[in-house]
């Protein structure tokens, strides 16, 4: 596909209408599918990938004409950035416009460019929300669930020698591939066939809104489940009140609502992110809080990871064991 010289594959020497063949369209689609982020850069993001994806089209429509080839290449080397899957509709629409232009219709460079730039933002908004925001996390959650990590975390954090189910990542790979390639293909071909009206008809149908709404409901349920399964906060702090030892976790917090802390932590994290806190900053802060929370300043040094009860603020893995911590390996 990287044939070097322009003139070699002109192919449309005959007069009359210049038509994009199905093969050209598929070739363009394949190039975009593979190389959309090959030369991702701060200056113009996916610009060279867009031009690259247009090369089969340019060869077919303008092959042999050096001036038109140059103009077309330059036209498609402008700033471009969109969601690689849903945004592929822009390529379909652009190819249709290029075809009309090559056949003498009044379509200016500016019209093509402003269609591209006008569509790339909205399509990135929809595509990122559905793809990166909903489908991928959902499928990842399923994949994680299939590996069996959830059950493991309930027992102990020691993963040594434990074998997860490799089917989790494999199934995730297959599903996400079907989603991504399928969406890109439909967007590319329908965008070309129906042109601009495909975009407006899909948007006007309200289908996208419904998909996003339904998927958000599903996504929220799964996130709630993941919170219960994987987010664990146990307070190991005990307070001596006269004769009795008050364990903050079991005797206070669990009395209010079991699992209150993990839920509060997730909602707090969401709120901080929403307020503009950077996730990396939070990750670093949380690691430091965990380490500080584990310092055994109130009691003896733990001999095993699990027997920190009473000596540090936070307690690993589970609430303080009732009589004596079981002698488990670390």
């Amino acid at each position, binding site marked *: 596909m990287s044939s070097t010289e322009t003139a070699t594959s002109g192919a449309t020497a005959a007069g009359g209408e210049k038509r994009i063949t199905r093969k050209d369209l598929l070739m363009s689609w394949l190039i975009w599918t593979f190389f959309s982020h090959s030369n991702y850069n701060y200056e113009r993001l996916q610009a060279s990938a867009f031009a690259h994806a247009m090369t089969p089209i340019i060869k077919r429509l303008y092959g042999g004409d050096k001036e038109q080839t140059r103009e077309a290449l330059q036209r498609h080397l402008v700033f471009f950035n969109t969601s690689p899957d849903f945004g592929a509709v822009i390529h379909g629409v652009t190819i249709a416009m290029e075809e009309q232009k090559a056949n003498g219709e009044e379509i200016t460079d500016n019209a093509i460019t402003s269609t591209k730039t006008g569509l790339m933002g909205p399509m990135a908004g929809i595509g990122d929300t559905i793809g990166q925001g909903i489908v991928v996390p959902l499928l990842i959650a399923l994949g994680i669930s299939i590996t069996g990590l959830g059950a493991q975390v309930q027992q102990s954090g020691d993963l040594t020698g434990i074998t997860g189910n490799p089917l989790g990542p494999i199934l995730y790979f297959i599903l996400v591939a079907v989603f991504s390639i399928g969406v890109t293909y439909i967007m590319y071909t329908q965008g070309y066939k129906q042109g601009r009206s495909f975009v407006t008809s899909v948007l006007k149908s309200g289908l996208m809104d419904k998909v996003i709404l339904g998927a958000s409901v599903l996504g929220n349920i799964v996130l*709630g489940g993941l919170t219960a399964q994987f987010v664990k906060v146990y307070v190991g702090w005990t307070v001596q009140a006269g004769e009795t030892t008050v364990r903050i976790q079991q005797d206070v917090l669990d009395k209010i609502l079991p699992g209150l802390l993990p839920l509060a932590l997730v909602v707090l994290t969401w709120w901080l992110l929403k307020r503009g806190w950077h996730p990396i900053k939070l990750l*670093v802060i949380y690691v430091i809080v965990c380490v500080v929370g584990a310092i055994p300043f109130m009691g003896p040094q733990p001999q095993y990871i699990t027997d920190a009860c009473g000596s540090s603020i936070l307690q690993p893995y589970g609430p303080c064991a009732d009589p004596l911590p079981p002698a488990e390996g670390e």
Partner: protein
Amino acid sequence: MVKNPKGERRLSRGAKISLVISTLVVIIGIPTAVQAMTLTEVEPSTTVTISLFQSILIGLGYYLSQSPWIAGLSFYTLNRPLVAGLLVGVILGDPGQGALIGAAINLIYLGFISAGGAIPGDPGLAGWVGTTIAIAGSLNYGAALAIAVPIGLLGTVVWNARMTVDSAFMHMADRAADRADIGGVVRANILYPQAWLFLITFVPVTIAVFIGASFIGDVINGFPVWLLGGLAIAGGILPAIGIAMNMKFIFLGSAIPYFFVGYLVMVVLGNEVSIMVLAVIGVALAFLHVVFLGDRVSNASKPKSEKLRSDKSAESEAAR
């Protein structure tokens, strides 16, 4: 050449690097010092040594996770710790263990999203190198998650180096276009950026994994017990960030209550129910929700569009 960009970018990268170093100091430096002073007895860990050949495969894997060669799917697949973990497991001879550790690390990056070319940490590096260290050092779940944090942060340095230098290839594409040279544009989109990417991904990761993975595993295993406990606590807390990052996108409007529904179902059923089962319940509820509320929501934007388009465009709308 990485330092090409102007002022602030260099500064922010400097800030990131200092953040990485300070994190490493906290995670590795202080405890080792404490360790040296307290001299707690720690049983020697059962570390797996990593051969040069395995390091090369892991380096290649990380390159592939950023490359276009897997039908452009890398960003959704090899770049995710879940998949990277399995592949590292295959390379190190324990696929099941790798899948499990990868799944754990992926919890932090559950809501990972790249928009407009910016990434909050690199799940790819965290997945490939994090899983390697975790397997090599037989780390516990929490320690695996904690080590993945600074590694993912280092990954943003690689990402920035790539995004910055690739701008130069844009200008090569421009010059090729001026010559009407289609092949030149193609080369500028594939050949040079991929060569550069290979250089900044394969080489450092291969070297780092070969020299450092077992070593870092040993260092972590040498931590005093209370600190290992701290990392174990992190294992329970860090997933909150991955989950909350995703909530930023979907914890909105009428979908909000369902988060608590999912949480309560899981708590009440005592974690007996798998996410798969929860998802099936979720699909049913989502269907009902859309049937009863979907029209109201999607129609909401329609009349508005009619309203705002001025009269003349409304006419042409009618004419169509």
